[in-house]
């Protein structure tokens, strides 16, 4: 099962923030700074695409008394 969107987004976003901080606070050689910048651009695009393409993920627990099917076809029933 792929890790979920929220985790991916949060991970990438926090990497992006750390990277900016590193770029801000340290005396990096220009080529390393450029490498960090490229990586930052990649993370930013990744975050943006996760937000654009995210889909609510629905899991239906089993019902107490009578079992009724959920409406959505793409329900994940992994509990």
């Amino acid at each position, binding site marked *: 099962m792929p890790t*979920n969107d929220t985790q991916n987004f949060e991970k990438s976003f926090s990497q992006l923030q750390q990277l900016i901080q590193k770029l801000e606070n340290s005396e990096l050689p*220009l080529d390393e700074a*450029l490498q960090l910048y490229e990586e*930052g*651009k990649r993370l930013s695009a990744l975050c943006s695409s996760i937000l654009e393409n995210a889909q609510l*993920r*629905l*899991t239906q627990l089993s019902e107490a008394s009578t079992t009724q099917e*959920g*409406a959505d076809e793409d329900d994940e029933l992994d509990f």
Partner: protein
Amino acid sequence: MDDFLPFTPVVMTITALTNYLRKMLESDEILQDVWVKGEISNFSPSRSGHIYFTLKDNESQLRAVMWKQSALRLRFDPQDGQAVEAHGYISFYASNGQLQLYVDSMRPAGEGTLFQEFSRLKARLEGEGLFDQARKRELPSFPRHIGVVTSPSGAALQDILNTLGRRLPLLRVSLAPTAVQGAEAPAGIVKALNQLNQIADLDLIIVARGGGSIEDLWAFNDENVARTIAASRLPVIAGVGHETDFTIADFVADLRAPTPTAAAELATPITRLDLLANLQATTQNLDLVLSEKVRSLSADLQIASLELKRNSPMQRVYNNIQRHDDLRERLDRAVQAQLKAKELAVAALGARLAALNPTAVLSRGFAIVSSASTGKIISKTTQTLAGQSILIRFQDGTSSAIVQDPSGGTHANQ
């Protein structure tokens, strides 16, 4: 005989009689403020908005009318055969000669009992402190995983999923399906809440149901449901019925939403748009940091090239020329100073010399004796010989003399 009446009777018109009847009815306190229970029949809403119907029980019936103004406030759709409790006053409708109940409010039969039950439970739980603001838990501002307790086939679920999907599609949603009305609903809702509370990474729970009559919503006034919400490990948002419906679940929940859709909105204060805006700002910051870096590097470069220029050999040559000029100037200044000092010394000597001028002494009566032959100054008797020619210099000139006796007297002066 029987049909002969000795007195002329008072004969009333119908209108006068009906007016009299109406006055009688309307002066009766009981008939002016009365609750009547019965079953609706001949229900007929008119196009004007007023509704006409008959209330009946097994033996009797009564015409009833409800004006539009009151009918608009009805919280249910009356139907033929429905048992209701109606409140209003009795009067007489002259046009068709009938007594009528003028209804100003009406509720399904039994609602009165339900309401009393509701009030008692509410007061009891409130007394236990279950509704205290201090008990309300804070909701997470950025939930990752939301649990939903509702009917899997209800419109409330679709409203919630649509709203959550539109606002924060990163979410995971776990649905604990349960009946939300009927006899089994309270136990089902309790079980669903407990199921969701066992999910470790769940952030909050929405308990929801679409609008309905007060009986439809009754499961949310159940004491066990209320206590389960109060005991929930996770914060609970209640979104039950419409804006005007208040259930015990609403009071005990951490947050009351007016509708299921509103519950989904309140559960997601941070939306995808907020995240996108934040991402955009962060990415701009990345660009800014890099261009700042480049600016600072080019400033460094400028400083370095200035440094280089300062350290070039040409600069050293110029420096030496300048130093040379400086030295020459210092030399000139030193020589000038020396000369000046010598001049001063000469002047000082001249002054001292003037002070030592022997002619100054001559004016006070002293004379200078010198040998006429050698010109040497004679300051002692032993330097003289008898018959020696000497010169005596006075203030104003010189006289010549001959020494008679070199040691002839203690006074040599003449």
